[in-house]
């Protein structure tokens, strides 16, 4: 009697599992996908550090050292000019590091057996800066170990971290966290409003009225744009006051970019609410759809540049990636509107795309 009850439950449960082949396929494919995705995304390695070398010594030794960098697959080397060029290169993210071999490098090495190389590293991303420093140190030591096998470390590196001299971890994490929190909040707010109306039935009444899809979408967007903008401002204010992250660029520009980013987030939320019917599923979709890509593919924690091509392509579709460039650029580097025109344009396009898709989806509701 008891055994047949147990058997009944087992059989019934297996029927439930095999009833829906789609779910079964997802159950098997999802862990596989997660393993491959996270395995390739969770890496701090950088494939090729864009590096500018300025050789002020122009000796056999300094040229040999330059060639060590040019010959290494870890660096993409360009040969530099003046200090002014350097500043521009760093601000445009064209290089991550600059190595300057000072005049007298070779002479000092011959006379005293010691010498110095000046290194400047972009410190706006602290983890990356440390990795770059390791690469450069390894390259220099590789060269000196060949050239002077007897002296262990004849060349001293003097690294300077640009934008974040003390490599404060807050400088690195706070802009990323800000980007993450703002998109999660703004997407969540709007995803709940329309699904909430679907649950209560008032959405049906709206469909029965002559309001158009565009009016509903924009009418829903405006209040939440203001709300998420205020939340975003408070968060950035916190990072300034509590974590002492500077705002070196124009605060008005930062505010305008924040507004665009909030719009992107809430447009995504509206799109989500047109796809699902309950607040619970809207919440899950909005949270997962913003959190996972932002954590793994925005450059918040992991370098997207060194990921395999499919993941790098996927990272182009993550709005936070562009806002991260903007917020790090304005807060740490003092970037201008002109320097940030590309990420701002992309965020605007994302908003237009999400809102357009949401309106199209709404129209199909209203007409069908």
């Amino acid at each position: 009697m008891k055994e047949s009850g147990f058997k009944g439950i087992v059989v019934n449960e297996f029927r439930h599992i095999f009833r829906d082949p789609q779910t079964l396929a997802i159950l098997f494919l999802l862990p596989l996908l997660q393993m491959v995705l996270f395995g390739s995304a969770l890496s701090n390695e950088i494939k090729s550090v864009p590096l500018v070398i300025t050789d002020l010594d122009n000796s056999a030794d300094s040229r040999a050292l330059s060639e060590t960098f040019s010959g290494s697959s870890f660096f993409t080397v360009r040969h530099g000019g003046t200090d002014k060029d350097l500043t521009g290169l760093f601000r445009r993210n064209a290089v991550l590091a600059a190595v300057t071999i000072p005049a007298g490098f070779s002479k000092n090495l011959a006379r005293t057996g010691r010498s110095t190389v000046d290194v400047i590293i972009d410190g706006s991303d602290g983890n990356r800066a440390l990795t770059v420093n390791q690469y450069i140190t390894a390259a220099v030591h590789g060269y000196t170990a060949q050239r002077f096998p007897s002296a262990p470390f004849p060349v001293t590196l003097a690294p300077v971290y640009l934008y974040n001299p003390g490599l404060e971890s807050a400088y690195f994490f706070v802009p990323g966290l800000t980007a993450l929190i703002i998109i999660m909040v703004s997407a969540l707010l709007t995803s709940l409003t329309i699904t909430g109306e679907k649950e209560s039935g008032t959405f049906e009444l709206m469909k029965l009225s002559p309001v158009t899809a565009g009016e509903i979408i924009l009418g829903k967007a405006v209040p939440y744009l203001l709300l998420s903008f205020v939340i975003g401002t408070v968060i950035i204010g916190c990072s300034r006051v509590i974590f002492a992250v500077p705002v070196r660029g124009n605060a008005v520009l930062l505010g305008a970019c924040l507004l665009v980013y909030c719009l992107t987030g809430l447009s995504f939320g509206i799109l989500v609410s047109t796809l699902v019917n309950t607040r619970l599923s809207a919440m899950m979709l909005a949270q997962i759809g913003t959190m996972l890509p932002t954590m793994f593919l925005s450059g918040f924690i992991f370098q997207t540049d060194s990921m395999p091509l499919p993941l790098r392509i996927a990272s182009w579709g993550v709005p936070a990636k562009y806002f991260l460039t903007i917020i790090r650029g304005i807060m740490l580097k003092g970037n201008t509107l002109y320097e940030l025109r590309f990420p701002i344009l992309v965020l605007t396009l994302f908003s237009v795309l999400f809102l357009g898709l949401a309106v199209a989806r709404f129209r199909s509701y209203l007409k069908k």
Partner: protein
Amino acid sequence: MAEQIPIISIEHLCMQFGSFTAVRDLTFSIPRGSVFGFLGANGAGKTTTIRIICGLLQPTSGDVIVSGISVRRRPAAVKEKIGYMSQKFSLYGDLTPAANLDFFGGIYGVPQEIINGEKSRLAAELGTDGFSHMHTSELPMGFKQRLALSCTLLHEPEIIILDEPTSGVDPVGRRAFWAEILALSRTGKTILVTTHFMDEAEYCSSIAIMRSGELLVLDTPAAVRAAYGTESLNEAFIRAVESKGAGV
């Protein structure tokens, strides 16, 4: 009811969902100023027909002309002619009655003076405090229903569609509600009502019974009773729906 001008004309209406036919070549008209009862078992095609009349569904073929406007061609224009009320979809429970009136007036483009007039009329009934401070969800059922009807009528629709308006309402509340509906019909409004209560169907000037997407009967309640030879409309309804033939 012979020589009246129809306000709603349903013309060879068909609605197909995949392989399922919800409405099959439906043709009939509803005269202006009538109280038209729309009956049928669950799944008979009533709700689909109403959604098409309201401009929410594009018919597979055929058309509905509402006050001279084709639903197929101008669904948005039809929506302005219709006021819809249902027990299922109601009001914003977390807003005050006043805010609900503002919202429904707003989406139909009703002038603020008319909305304010309706507000003071209802506030006089409930008491001002409750009206502007209480959440609608806290109001008694009867008042919620009055408010829902006010929201439905704000934009002065010619046609009022009531989709099972009284399910969950007690008999006293239902009688009061119907008194209001009949008063509205005397002002020239056309009422289209679906219901499962046959005592309510008796209030109608004519009733239509649907089965499997087709029209079975269309006549006055008295004529329907006579045709099936029954005392009550309830019995006539059951006989109609269970009969094998095409009807009367």
